[in-house]
């Protein structure tokens, strides 16, 4: 199994001073999978994402991506390998237009010596079309609505042509219909061959999306398996609902 895994995390541990944020996390993600990652606030979900993506350094354990040990690789190097993320709160490049926001990963992550050409412009248009922002390409991010900002965030993550996309709460704060929009988008991306790890609080979305559900509580993984079974797991219920 470990030979075919896209992402393999073994014994990952992260401390902030005396506080143990993550402890002995094991996680295997297979190519093409849709994995949901849930956990109460402060359970270490975002810390895990930051460790996987190289934003934070973890003290213990290994992370392998397509069989390759990621130790010592910086965030931008991991993006180039095909490990992309979107941010919990949209973090667009405020002084660049919507199209330019998507152009940056094309130039820097896809073509190592890329130039701005008609070809890259076409690719930008294609990506923006996919998320439904084609007519906003010349706008600045501050002119976008909240859901458009989320879509831009996903388009930018997809622009680096990832093998694995980690969507960190791409739907928080959106309305019912908007959640369905983003959900459909993520499923479409997955059908296009991208493995997706979704971090989410909206249970309806997570259960609809995930083929497998992983639960983090207080920095430990307490469940991993079929979503319907996991949510009935007594330990998970206790973590969410209390004793």
């Amino acid at each position, binding site marked *: 199994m470990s030979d075919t895994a896209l992402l393999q995390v073994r014994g990952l541990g992260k401390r902030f001073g005396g506080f143990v944020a993550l402890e002995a996390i094991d996680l295997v993600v297979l190519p093409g999978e849709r994995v949901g990652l849930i956990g109460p606030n402060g359970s270490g979900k975002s810390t895990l994402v930051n460790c996987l*993506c*190289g*934003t934070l350094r973890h003290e213990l354990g290994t992370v392998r991506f397509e069989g390759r040990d990621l130790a010592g690789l*910086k*965030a*931008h*190097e991991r*993006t*180039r390998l095909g490990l*992309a*993320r979107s*941010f919990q709160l949209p*973090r*667009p*490049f*405020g*002084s*660049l237009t919507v199209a*330019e926001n998507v*152009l*940056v*990963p094309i*130039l*820097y*992550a*896809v073509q190592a010596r*890329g*130039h*701005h050409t008609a070809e890259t412009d076409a690719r930008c248009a294609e990506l923006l079309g996919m998320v439904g922002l084609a007519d906003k390409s010349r706008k600045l991010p501050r002119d976008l609505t909240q859901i458009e900002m989320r879509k831009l965030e996903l388009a*930018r*993550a997809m*622009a*680096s042509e990832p093998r694995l996309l980690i969507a960190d709460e791409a739907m928080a704060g959106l309305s019912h219909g908007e959640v369905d929009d983003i959900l459909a988008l993520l499923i479409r991306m997955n059908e296009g061959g991208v493995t997706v790890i979704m971090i989410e609080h909206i249970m309806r979305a997570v259960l609809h999306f995930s083929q497998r559900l992983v639960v983090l509580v207080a920095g430990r993984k307490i469940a991993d398996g079929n979503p319907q079974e996991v949510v009935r797991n007594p330990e998970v219920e206790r973590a969410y609902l209390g004793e």
Partner: protein
Amino acid sequence: MRTARFLPLILLVAALVFGVARAIDNSYVFFAGYVVLQYIVLAIAWNILGGYTGYVNFGTPAFLAIGAYASVALYKIVPLPIPLLMLIGGVLSGIVGLGTGYLTLRLRGAFFSIATLALSVVVQTLVTNWDFVGGSRGAYIIRPMAAPLIGGGYIDYLCLLMLLLVVLSVVIARAIEHSKLGYGFATIRDDEAAAEASGVPTLRLKLMATTLSGALMGMAGAPLPYYVTYLDPASGFSLTYAVNAIAMPLIGGTASWIGPILGAVILGTVQQLVTVTISSAANLLIVGLILVGFVIVAPNGIVGLVRGWRR
């Protein structure tokens, strides 16, 4: 417009400027013009780091003075042609820029700025205690009376070289803006974590910016001893350079290469006029007042103002 087509155009503009200055045939024009041109280079150089990547550098005097004092030191050993001195000053300041960047770019915002201010103090202390280049007494440079190659006063020659450095700076700044590098710099200014996540090697790009910015400042400083003929640490490391190098791009607009030029021409000219008509001490006061005015009326500088009208 590609750089290949832009270069002849800006060379033509530079030739016109120089031709008109020669036609006026008044040595004061060159005397004042040199200072304005020097500030254009400093403003463009500052803007490469401060405007494009958003790292505010207070260390302009250090980079300028490294170029200037390299010239003083070489003058004492073996006097070289000014273009060669500019090259040497550029290389030295570029190396210092790279080193400074490596040590300080982990700092963000005000902390980076404080570190660059400290750099200025450190270099000034070193030079003040370096007897070979005159220490705190300063150093005299005896420059030739006539200019080589072009004839006329020696200041004319220095002015021409500074004009060529302006051309070089403008071409570099403009090329960056329209390139992959320019987009990379902009993402660093906007959000470094998101830049990394988009595959932008932020540290390497920041080091490129500090090196390039420092090198241009060093090149601008190299002819300075020949211009003033007497250089001491107090004037070489004057805070005026730091303040002007920041104020000029802010007044002109940091988003585009033309902004620092506009700022430097306007502010530099006003300062020169004030120096001869009112008082040389009123210089910085003027900078302060204009800057306050612009922060209120046009926070994005003249370029921002014009773009606002066009919308």
